[in-house]
């Protein structure tokens, strides 16, 4: 049987980062095909290429044996590919029926949109899917599960033969997952090709016939699900060269700096407890969406929490106040440098001194000499490569921007440093430097919490690893216990069987 869709040797880079390199796999009609891999393995890039959002740099996509080149999402749609994103993409102000029909509404003879026919078509689709939704209600206010069903109806209405689903079950409850699966199974039995992306192995084994495993942007294997055990799949997902590790110096831990006790926020995370000592680096690992950043944002006071407490050096911290957190000696280096960490248009020195502008000011004014001296001291210490301190931060490379963010917070002499994805989008050389820096800061008695999606970084840097899964602590591992497998098992909710 010839495949409906073939991905042939595609590669895609964003700047210096190769997201996907030489990946090939076929998709067959009447088959559900799983695509699995760690965070950053390149799954989403593949999805976006199939959706027509990204164009492959090299390689081709083949639909029904013919090469296709999508200039945009409209082309992919026309080729019979429908993509259902993790976050549904509906128009909240329009009715459910309009959402389904958008782009090919039924028309009357005068080219008006035929609302009656449109609602009837939507109702027919819902009957076929076995769900009860009112086609004439606005999409606003639908639950995620219902929004996904609308997306599926949308795919059906455009006669899509290839359905790509990017982690559709991430936000669904058990019952909703079952309903989604029965819909997907019946589509598959009617001859549609399904590409299913999920982090949950029980779903992969329950739904899919074939699985493609990706690692670091590369294709590992495509096999029948029946031929692989869950252990095999995990091993192939993580089985990576471990030589590029960044060992942290061993430091005898000091006093407890941060104590988080049963922190909960409805619908986001619950019952999170952990502590960090001076000189320790504690990593928060887990899959994207497990609630890692959310927990640290709540600890820092950017977000609120419903119950539990945060203590710094034994003193309880006022919730929901970043100002109080900073006064107590906390510093947060956020995940998104551009959006949250730096003011790109301001000069380097201004950025470095921003959090303590008040302290540096004399007579209520900032004096540039003071500012400059301070900025000079920190950028020197972090070996930031820059032209002049008065240049805009936006002109620096990613790694050096990250150092400026670090300088900014280190100049406040924090007792606890929270870093969220400290080396995302940074080249390998600078990465090692950032790691060396964090290690030496810990050696100086700083307590560090690091949120990271990169397993080697977690394993190399952390004294202890806290694995989060779906908003809960799935495991707390010591340095000796933490391996690629044990962290992945915990993150995916599997028992260690080996």
């Amino acid at each position, binding site marked *: 049987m010839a495949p409906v869709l073939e991905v042939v040797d595609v590669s895609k880079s964003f700047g210096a980062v190769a997201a996907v390199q030489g990946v090939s796999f076929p998709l067959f009609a009447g088959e559900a095909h799983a695509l699995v891999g760690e965070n950053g393995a390149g799954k989403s890039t593949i999805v976006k290429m199939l959706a027509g959002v990204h164009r492959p740099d090299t390689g081709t996509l083949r639909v029904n044996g013919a090469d296709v080149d999508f200039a945009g999402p*409209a082309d992919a749609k026309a080729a019979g590919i429908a993509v259902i994103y993790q976050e549904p993409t509906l128009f909240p102000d329009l009715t459910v029926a309009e959402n389904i029909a*958008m782009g090919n509404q039924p028309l009357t003879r005068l080219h008006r949109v035929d609302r009656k026919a449109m609602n009837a078509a939507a109702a027919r689709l819902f009957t076929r899917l076995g769900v009860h939704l009112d086609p004439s209600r606005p999409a606003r206010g639908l639950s995620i599960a219902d929004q996904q069903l609308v997306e599926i109806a949308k795919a059906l209405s455009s006669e899509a033969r290839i359905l790509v689903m990017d982690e559709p079950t991430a936000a669904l409850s058990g019952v909703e997952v079952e309903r989604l699966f029965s819909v997907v199974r019946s589509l598959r039995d009617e001859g549609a090709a399904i590409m299913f992306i999920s982090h949950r192995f029980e779903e992969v084994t329950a739904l899919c016939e074939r699985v493609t495993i990706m690692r670091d942007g590369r294709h590992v294997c495509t096999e029948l699900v029946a031929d692989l055990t869950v252990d095999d799949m995990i091993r192939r997902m993580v089985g990576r060269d471990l030589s590029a590790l960044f060992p942290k110096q061993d430091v005898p831990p000091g006093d407890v700096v941060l104590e988080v006790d049963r922190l909960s926020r409805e619908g986001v995370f619950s019952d999170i407890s952990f502590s960090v000592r001076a000189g320790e680096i504690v990593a928060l690992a887990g899959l994207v969406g497990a609630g890692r950043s959310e927990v640290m944002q709540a600890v820092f006071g950017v977000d609120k929490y419903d119950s539990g407490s945060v203590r710094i050096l034994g003193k309880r911290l006022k919730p929901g106040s970043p100002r109080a957190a900073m006064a107590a000696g906390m510093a947060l280096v956020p995940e998104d440098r551009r959006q949250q960490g730096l003011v790109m248009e301001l000069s380097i020195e201004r950025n470095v001194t921003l959090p303590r502008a008040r302290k540096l000011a004399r007579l209520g004014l900032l004096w540039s000499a003071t500012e400059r001296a301070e900025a000079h001291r920190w950028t020197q210490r972090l070996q930031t490569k820059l032209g002049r301190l008065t240049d805009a931060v936006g002109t620096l490379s990613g790694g050096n921007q990250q150092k400026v963010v670090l300088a900014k917070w280190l100049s406040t002499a924090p007792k606890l440093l929270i870093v969220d994805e400290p080396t995302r989008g940074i080249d390998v050389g600078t990465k090692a430097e950032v790691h060396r820096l964090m290690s030496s800061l810990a050696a100086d008695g700083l307590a560090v919490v690091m949120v990271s999606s990169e397993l080697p970084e977690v394993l190399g840097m952390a004294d202890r690893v806290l694995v989060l899964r779906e908003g809960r602590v799935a495991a707390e591992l010591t340095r000796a216990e933490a391996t690629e497998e044990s962290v992945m098992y915990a993150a995916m909710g599997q028992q260690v069987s080996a």
Partner: protein
Amino acid sequence: MSAMASPAPGVKTIFKARELGIVLALAALVAYTAIGNPRFLSGQSVRDILLNTAILAVMAAGQAVVVITRNIDLSVGSVLGLSAFAVATMMSANPGLPMIVALLAGIAVGAVCGLLNGVLIRYGRVPALVVTLGTLYIYRGVTYSWAGGSQVNADELPPHFLTFANDSLLGIPWLVLIAIVVVGGVSFLMRDFRVGRELYAMGSSPQAAELAGIRVARNLLGAFLLSGSLAGLAGVLFAARFGTVDAAAGTGYELNVVAAVVVGGVAVFGGSGTVWGAGLGALLLTVIGSALAVLDINQFWQQAIVGALIVLAIGADRLVAVRIARSLRRRDARG
């Protein structure tokens, strides 16, 4: 099935209630004023109100389309000025030209201005607020440097041009007819045609619109082209109605137009509201102005009242949004 027990009907009635609210406010205002001074409902007074509404409503129809796509066009007042001056100059130089040529010339001037706005926004990737704030000054500056302090007076314009404002068909002034056709036509386009629904979709979720394969660039250019063209048309109507045109014609109109659209129930964040609601908004603002004069209330209050209406309209939007967000959160927490 959780979807059936959702708060959808409430949401729907609130959306419907938007235009209803304006109608009710309008009725109450007219009734109250008429009781205070019955002459408010005399033929001449009603005629004046409708004539004054017409120009505002034509521009509001175009602006509503732009706002529905989650953009804004601040240049409409300047486009009106440029079109009015261009057409008045043309008519005074060629008194023999028929009215339809004047109308088409005004529309063409506006179309060029609107298209330029659209191109800068889409291909320059600059927010509409910034682009049209810039072109507001540019178009006005062009008009000023062209006029060079001169003005076109009523006695220089051909009589058929000037009487157009007062002539009527079946007792309805041409100006009002044009406004009704424009508001009705654009409402129809937005409600019942594919392109209209796509414009709503773009405002409702720009990201999803791109992913859905909607021709976003074409539609956006179209929206600004329409807004510009209607402002150009309004310029011709302005020149015909007032006769005397200088380079300052229509200064500050953009704010009235935006106010009419917002008061008329078009959501400032796009995606919802109707064009005829914006037309009603224009009518309401004009009636308020006349009513205050009739009731002998200080004109200064007019601005404060318009301001209060805008805040009220936006407040209602936020209230709806917050309620929906809250009910969603509760549901997610349950699920």
